[in-house]
Structure formats: structure tokens, C-alpha cells
């Protein structure tokens, strides 16, 4: 049992520290790499908590697909990451110390307070101190459960992915417009309608 605990604490430390490092990076590529480490750690945690299929999916979808998408966008857009100013941080203003403190310090303070309160809330509950017993849901059992009990949400999720696809295609389609009507791609219906009216 102590081995399980040890692995859990190690994983938790890795996940937390790499996520913290990720969100404080100014170089976005470094951020992606730290976040991939964090998602790998989460995948291992899922395995530890008895969800091998989800562990694989976490690595494939989060650390794989989503992060590669981010990396792709970061590489293709001209980066201004190194010049990014945090909220309220203005280099031309010398006397903005208090304002800067307010803008970055306040969210951090709020976050810490929230975390402490949440921690108190969580550990005020005696039920919460139960130890988790290791168990494992095999992918076959889980898959059967998913498609017997949850096939309807699975269908809805497929529509969600379809809408995501349509949106990405529509917004990413050629011709960013740049304010000129002529370069905006016209839908065929609009064209035919305009011809009909003319």
C-alpha cells in the first residue's frame, strides 16, 4: 500500500509543479512542453486510479492531439509571447507599482484564499478521509458500460465535435477579410441570391 501512496505523491508533485511552471512561462513552446509533462503525469494518475483506457486517451488526446494543435498554432502565428505584459504591467509607467501589484497580486491572493477555503471545506468532511482501494476497470468492461448506459450522451458528444469541426473550418477558411468586403468569401447562396435580385 505504501508504494501506491508514494507513487501518488510523486505524481501529484510532478503534475502540480509542471503545471505551475507551464502557466508562468513567457515562451509558449516551453509552456507546451511543461504542459505535456503535466498531462503525462495525469495520465499515469488515471492509471493509478483504475482507469487504464482513460489514461491512454489522456495521453493521446490531451498530451497528443490538443497540445500538438497548440504547438501548431504557436509556430504559425508570429509570437509576441516574449513581450507579453501581464495585466496592468506597463513598462512606460514608472510609478505603477501599486497598480501592478493590484492587477497580478489580487488574482493570486484570491486564488490562494479560494484554495485554502476549499481545502478547509474538503477536509472538514469526515467522509472524505476514506482510503481509496485500488481497483481497475478494464477497457472492455468500461466500453460496454459506456455504450449500454451512456450511448445517448456519446451521440451528443459526436454532434459537439461536428460543430467544432464546422466552426474551425468556417473561421479558418481562406481570406481573413482584413476589412474589405471584396475579399470576404461569399457563400454560394448569397451569390445566387444577389444575382437573382439584380
Amino acid at each position, binding site marked *: 500500500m505504501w508504494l501506491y501512496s508514494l507513487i*501518488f*505523491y510523486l505524481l*501529484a508533485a510532478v503534475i*502540480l509543479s509542471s*503545471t*505551475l511552471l507551464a*502557466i508562468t512561462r513567457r515562451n509558449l513552446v516551453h*509552456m507546451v512542453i511543461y504542459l505535456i509533462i503535466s*498531462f503525462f503525469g*495525469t495520465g499515469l*494518475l*488515471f492509471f493509478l*486510479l483504475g*482507469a487504464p483506457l*482513460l489514461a491512454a*486517451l*489522456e495521453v493521446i*488526446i*490531451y498530451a497528443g492531439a*490538443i497540445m500538438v*494543435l*497548440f504547438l501548431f*498554432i504557436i509556430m*504559425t*502565428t508570429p509570437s*509576441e509571447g516574449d513581450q*507579453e*505584459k*501581464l*495585466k496592468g504591467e506597463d513598462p512606460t509607467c514608472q510609478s505603477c507599482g501599486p497598480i501592478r501589484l493590484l492587477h*497580478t497580486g489580487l*488574482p493570486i491572493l484570491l*486564488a490562494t484564499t479560494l*484554495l485554502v477555503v476549499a*481545502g478547509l471545506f*474538503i477536509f472538514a*468532511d469526515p467522509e*472524505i*478521509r*476514506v*482510503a*481509496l*482501494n485500488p481497483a481497475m*476497470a478494464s477497457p472492455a468492461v468500461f466500453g460496454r*458500460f*459506456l455504450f449500454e*448506459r*451512456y450511448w445517448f*450522451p*456519446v451521440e451528443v*458528444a459526436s454532434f*459537439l*465535435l461536428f*460543430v*467544432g469541426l464546422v*466552426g*474551425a473550418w*468556417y473561421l479558418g477558411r481562406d481570406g*481573413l477579410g*482584413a476589412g474589405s468586403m471584396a475579399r470576404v468569401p461569399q457563400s454560394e447562396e448569397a451569390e445566387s441570391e444577389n444575382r437573382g435580385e439584380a
Partner: protein
Amino acid sequence: MAVYGQVILLGMMLFVIGGACVLIRRNLIMILIGVEIMLNAAGIVFIAASLRWGALDGQAFVIFIMAVAAAEVAVGLALIVYCQGRSGSINADTYNTLKG
């Protein structure tokens, strides 16, 4: 094995880190990353709860979280790239022309 509350607390900490990222960072890509971290944190809580209650419902929900995260990232990144192409900036502070 770890205590249930500790896993929930880990999820909570990740959620707060993600929320802080949304609040503090001004880069739109970083804001989107913050949301991803928050969604992932919810996944950890669901899986721990699934083990705690001995039911697979929590694990099933994580599948949907992954679908939602993927769709949201696809639309969000497309929106960011599209705005960046128009205004040349991915800093959230440049999007402030709508005022009363």
C-alpha cells in the same frame, strides 16, 4: 493508497492554477490553456469519485470532457488565429474597442 480528499484537493489545486492563468495572463493562447487545465482538473475529480463510489459513471463523464475540450480548443484556436490575422495581435487587451 492515497486518501480520497487528497485527490480531490489535487484537482482543486489544478483548477485554481488554471483559473489564475485565465485571470492573470493576457495572451489569448494562455487563457485557452488555462481553461484546458481547469477541464483536466475536473477529470481528475471525476475519476477519483468514480473509484470512491465504485461506479463507472465518473469515468464515462471524462470521455465527454475530452470531447468538449477538443471541440472547444478547435473553435477557440480558429477564433484566435482569425482575430490575429485581422488585428495582428493575440493580446487580450487589444480587444477593447467595444465600450459604451
